[in-house]
């Protein structure tokens, strides 16, 4: 019996150590731990960074802000640079997971990132102390011109009986509730429960018309023509329009979400200097162009447009929208744990409605 325990103990010990293997950081090693969305960086750009600086990049990826958060907050791995979205950055600031950036070490960021994007960042980073914008975009209505013959300029078209079973909605509480809230003329950061209840009711009424609640599947369904109209992120819209020439993208007049994914540095980062070098490198116009052409999401880097070689992208109002159109758009804020749960509950009520 004793032997069994001994074996068990050894095994558990092994598990323990291997579990935080990537977190063990040798001070002498010249490294930077980067945690970002899947396929969010051009691998060539990362290689170039390693070659120029001699800093080894350890890259991990996540697929939702929500799955990223616990890994950082529990400190299982000490990441240096992270690239979360707006409201999540605010949540991380509120919970003391980030450290202020030293902008003296970020000359390229200061030079190349548009003033407007820092201004918009104030929604979640009020003093512009913690984040450098990396990618941005909006949410709009993607539609198939062959099927949709009404003018697409309002979210209300998603409640049109004519398009029953051809409508796609986003399968996430904030993105779903944003649409009726905007129709009602409310903020997408609404915290008044009465208003939220009304927004939920609108979604329940809309449910029989909706073909599916989607996240990534939106691309397939719009390209194949399975769906005719749906709520789509601008970056995805660009890819869809390239594949299916019958589609177009419109920003509703009621307003939409101006989202920003930004670089931040974790509070317990072990390679703070390297982290700054990495962020600044990614803000260099020649590197930003590589990332933009790889990714397809709009870039806040104002020096990029002149360097883009793909004519289709260069002249696309979806890839390079006129920023003035977006001056009064809102960005998601972190509404606190209780409000988050409340949004989730409302969304569940929509999904379980008959």
């Amino acid at each position, binding site marked *: 019996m004793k032997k069994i325990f001994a074996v068990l103990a050894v095994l558990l010990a092994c598990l323990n150590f291997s579990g935080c293997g990537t977190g063990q950081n040798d001070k002498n090693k010249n490294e930077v731990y980067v945690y970002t969305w899947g396929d969010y960086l051009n691998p060539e750009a990362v290689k170039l960074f390693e070659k120029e600086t001699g800093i080894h990049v350890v890259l991990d990826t996540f697929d939702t802000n929500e799955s990223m958060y616990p890994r950082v907050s529990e400190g299982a791995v000490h990441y240096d640079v992270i690239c979360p979205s707006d409201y999540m950055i605010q949540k991380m600031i509120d919970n003391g997971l980030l450290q202020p950036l030293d902008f003296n070490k970020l000359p390229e960021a200061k030079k190349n990132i548009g003033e407007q994007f820092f201004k918009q960042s104030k929604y979640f980073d009020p003093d512009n102390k913690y984040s450098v914008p990396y990618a941005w975009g909006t949410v709009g209505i993607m539609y198939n011109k062959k099927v949709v013959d009404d003018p697409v300029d309002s979210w209300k078209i998603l409640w049109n009986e004519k398009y029953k079973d051809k409508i796609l909605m986003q399968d996430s509480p904030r993105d779903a509730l944003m649409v009726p809230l905007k129709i009602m003329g409310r903020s997408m950061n609404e915290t008044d429960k009465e208003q939220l209840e009304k927004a939920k009711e609108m979604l329940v009424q809309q449910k029989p018309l909706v073909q599916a609640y989607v996240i990534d599947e939106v691309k397939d369904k719009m390209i194949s023509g399975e769906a005719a109209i749906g709520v789509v992120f601008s970056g995805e819209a660009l890819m869809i329009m390239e594949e299916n020439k019958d589609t177009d993208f419109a920003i509703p007049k009621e307003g939409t979400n101006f989202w920003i994914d930004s670089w931040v540095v974790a509070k317990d980062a072990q390679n703070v200097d390297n982290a700054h070098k990495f962020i600044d490198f990614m803000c260099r116009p020649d590197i930003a162009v590589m990332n933009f052409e790889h990714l397809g999401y709009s870039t806040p880097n104002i020096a990029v447009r002149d360097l883009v070689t793909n004519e289709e992208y260069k002249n696309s109002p979806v890839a390079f929208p006129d920023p003035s159109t977006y001056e009064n758009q809102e960005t998601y804020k972190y509404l606190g744990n209780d409000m988050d749960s409340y949004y989730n509950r409302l969304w*569940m009520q929509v999904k379980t409605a008959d």
Partner: protein
Amino acid sequence: MFQSVTVRNLFLVPFCLWAGIFIFIPLVCIIYYGLTNSGGSFTLDNIAIITQREYYYSLRLSVVLALITTIICLLLAYPLCLILIERAKSAGTIIILLFVLPLWMNTLLSTMAWQTIFERDGILNQVLRLLSMPDMTLINTPTAVVIGMIYNYLPYMVLPLYVTLSKIDKSIFEAARDLGANSWQTFLKVTLPLSLPGAISGITMVFIPALTTFAISALLGGSKLLLIGNVIEQEFTVEYDWHLGSALSIILMIFIVINMVLTIFFDMSRREEE
């Protein structure tokens, strides 16, 4: 060969390790999380959430769809197995192999294939149009989810049923006929009771995965149907509420335990008869 008790016990070590690390410890974790709040103190609030409308609805929908799936699987598999044991052994084995083949394919892939069959402009509707028949809207309906589950879980019903039925001594049927039973009576009094153990393990093996699935309902239900499996998945991945997710898992486990208790109860009463 392995007479010595120590040697025999040694062979048990891998299993005990496996059971301890991958069954017992996770189970303790789930029960701990399910019965505590984020502060770590004991609470039943997480369990009580099932009484709230949206959670109760998704559990009810899961149970109903799982029951329908199990019943249809049983109705499909039973006659099939009866026919198979009448055939020559080799033919039966080949047909069984054909039934098991889909199991070698990834569940997600085959479910995605169903998605393209059921879509508005999918294969099914294209065939219907060729035959000048009206379109069927199946995708994103409970029917699509049930068909997907039947397709994926039918082999789990066929296999145990076939094994049990093929093990029944043929001479028992002959004896029944010699004693004047017609084929209907033979089925009711001989075949059915003797095949029950297989049917019960088949029911368990279909009902439990059907009750807990979240991939099939997400793909074929277009996320418009929220099954309890989807709710649990969201609690863990989106909401990051491990306590609630664990509590809901405990509730699902209650159904599984009920299923197991019924099986054991049935086994015992059968042994007593023997």
